[in-house]
């Protein structure tokens, strides 16, 4: 934002000089009357839209920006590296189980010019697991699963919770009651058991069923938030004005209420993604996420006792680290978004 010009104090110029200056300014203004003076007088900041301003505010939040960069790196790695690596994540090498991480050996490389150089080299940067599979490849592929589940299940939350919450908040009545009772019921249930029982009833876990089950059992928080927003905004003056002008329900919901209710939803959705990722990892840890050999950060930690007793702690440390880093970054980004969208609320 451009700084406001501080007007020159009157006393400095003296009475006479001041009136002359004002007259001169008037003249200038008259001369340029054809130019659009109005826009030029508005400070720069106001020309930026709400989202651009929020973006700028977010970038000023250093921790959040760094977290976003880390997340972007993880996402890019998780999306593209598995394509290049093919089946590396499931190739077993029984003779080289429990290969230690960061073990480099010298390797002769012949450069195109025919010069032989010796470089430090490692086949498995982060070592290999109990079956001799490359730990780094599994970690990256596991990240893909985590992000996929996190984002798609959140999309499900937004679709189910968003629409039901909006309808309940706007129309109230029977539907509202039904929604609130459903929420009570979900809260009263032990969530992990529910997911385990439902996936069992569906006959085994695949990535699709996992995402669907999480989406159908976990949407209530977004739903409640959306309902609260709609309940509050439907009584607000600008909505009443729109209604008085004869706007249809459809128009009021999508043009007037929805855009104004997005801020808390966006924040809650961002933070919710880390919650889903941790939930998926917990299920994987318990053995109820996607089955082997597909890796996920949770199921890589399964059977941790065995790894600890064999003193192969790195196999526990790397997936944990990946999980905590991702969750922490998402939470920090979510917090940055909250500050950026609603600077008053801190």
């Amino acid at each position, binding site marked *: 934002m451009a700084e406001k010009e501080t007007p020159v104090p009157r006393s400095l110029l003296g009475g006479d000089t001041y009136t002359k200056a004002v007259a001169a300014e008037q003249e200038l203004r008259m001369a340029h009357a054809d130019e659009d003076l109005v826009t030029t007088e508005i400070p720069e900041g106001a020309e930026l839209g709400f989202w651009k301003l929020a973006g700028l505010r977010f970038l000023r939040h250093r921790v959040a920006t760094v977290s976003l960069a880390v997340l972007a790196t993880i996402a890019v790695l998780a999306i593209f590296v598995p394509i290049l690596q093919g089946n590396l994540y499931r190739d077993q090498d029984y003779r080289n189980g429990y290969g230690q991480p960061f073990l480099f050996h010298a390797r002769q490389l012949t450069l195109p010019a025919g010069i032989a150089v010796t470089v430090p080299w490692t086949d498995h940067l982060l070592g290999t697991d109990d079956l001799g599979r490359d730990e780094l490849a599994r970690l990256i592929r596991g990240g893909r699963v985590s992000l996929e589940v996190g984002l798609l299940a959140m999309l499900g939350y937004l679709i189910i919770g968003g629409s039901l919450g909006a309808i309940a908040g706007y129309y109230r009545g029977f539907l509202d009651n039904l929604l609130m009772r459903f929420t009570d019921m979900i809260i*009263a249930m*032990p969530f992990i*058991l529910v997911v385990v*029982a439902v996936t069992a009833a569906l006959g085994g876990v695949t990535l699709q069923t996992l995402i669907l089950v999480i989406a159908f059992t976990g949407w209530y928080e977004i739903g409640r938030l959306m309902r609260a927003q709609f309940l509050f905004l439907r009584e607000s003056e600008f909505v009443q004005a729109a209604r008085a002008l004869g706007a249809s329900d459809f128009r009021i919901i999508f043009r007037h209420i929805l855009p104004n209710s997005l801020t808390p939803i966006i924040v809650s959705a961002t933070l919710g993604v880390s919650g889903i990722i941790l939930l998926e990892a917990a299920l994987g840890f318990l053995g109820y996420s996607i089955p082997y050999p597909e890796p996920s950060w949770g199921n890589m930690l399964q059977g941790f006792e065995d790894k600890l007793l064999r003193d192969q*702690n790195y196999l526990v440390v790397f997936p944990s680290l990946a999980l*905590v880093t991702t969750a922490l970054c998402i939470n920090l980004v979510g917090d940055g978004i909250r500050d950026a969208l609603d600077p008053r609320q801190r």
Partner: protein
Amino acid sequence: MTSYIARRVLIGVLLLLFMSVIFFALTRLTPGPPFTQGENPRTHQELIDKRIHALGLDRPWYEQYPAYLNALLHGSLGDSYQYKKPVSTLLVERVPNSVILLGTSLLISLGIAIPLGIFAATRQYSKVDMATSVISYVGISVPSFVLGIFLLIFGAIYLRKLTGNTFAFPLFGMHRGDDQSFLDLVVHMVLPVTSLAILTIAGFSRFMRSSMLEVLHQDYIRTARAKGLSGRVVNYKHALRNAILPIITLVALQIPQLVSGAIITEGIFSWPGMGLLAFQATVDRDYPVILAVVMLVAFLTVLFNLLADVSYAVVDPRIRY
């Protein structure tokens, strides 16, 4: 007020009924019979079929449900398939273990989180405040199983190496062998309680901080300061009383969780509590146990939600139902 409570009780009962139908159907609709796991593979199929028939599991779920509901209303939870004893006995054995573990952790985390939250709020943007928010961020982002595993690595494995094989916290269980002493229990509780408490502290201190901040920005606090009261009196006498109310509700709503246990932490530390029981029952398809645990937790949740709402009205005369 009376009609409100009556309505809530009615809704609660309907809710519980509905949940029992859903969970009953869910367990029965799972493909395959329940006795396939953990059974001697050489058991004759006839025997298994006989047992399934005796329990009525070969009929569709909607024919089995009335019998289940009838037994439930007469106070019978049925017999566990795995443990071969009444589910009620099982609950009586397991509930105290979970309450001990989670109750201790709840008390400890309240004892740390409330002062921490107050301290952070009264010195907003100070170093202590920043440190508190960093701790709570990390606490929120660390899943309980990761924390549990790392506590095991350090508390049980590295500590043994450090002390030259003389001392380490036990890897699992509540008691060593037949040693039923209190000291043994405490030693076994250190790691699981720490792992639970750290996560709860993270959440509670954040909540306490924001609750306290909200109160501190109110007019009556400014009035109290303007009257010249000392900061201590204002903070602890005027502000704290109002700021602590939401925490009390939060704690009240946590009580059902004391009974339901912590599935993951109990699993990691092999703590014989309700969480482990429920998870094992789900894995083993021990239908009566699954249903009993789910319904017990649901009942307590509904009850304590109602109590929380009613006590709100009692404490705050502005709330009318």
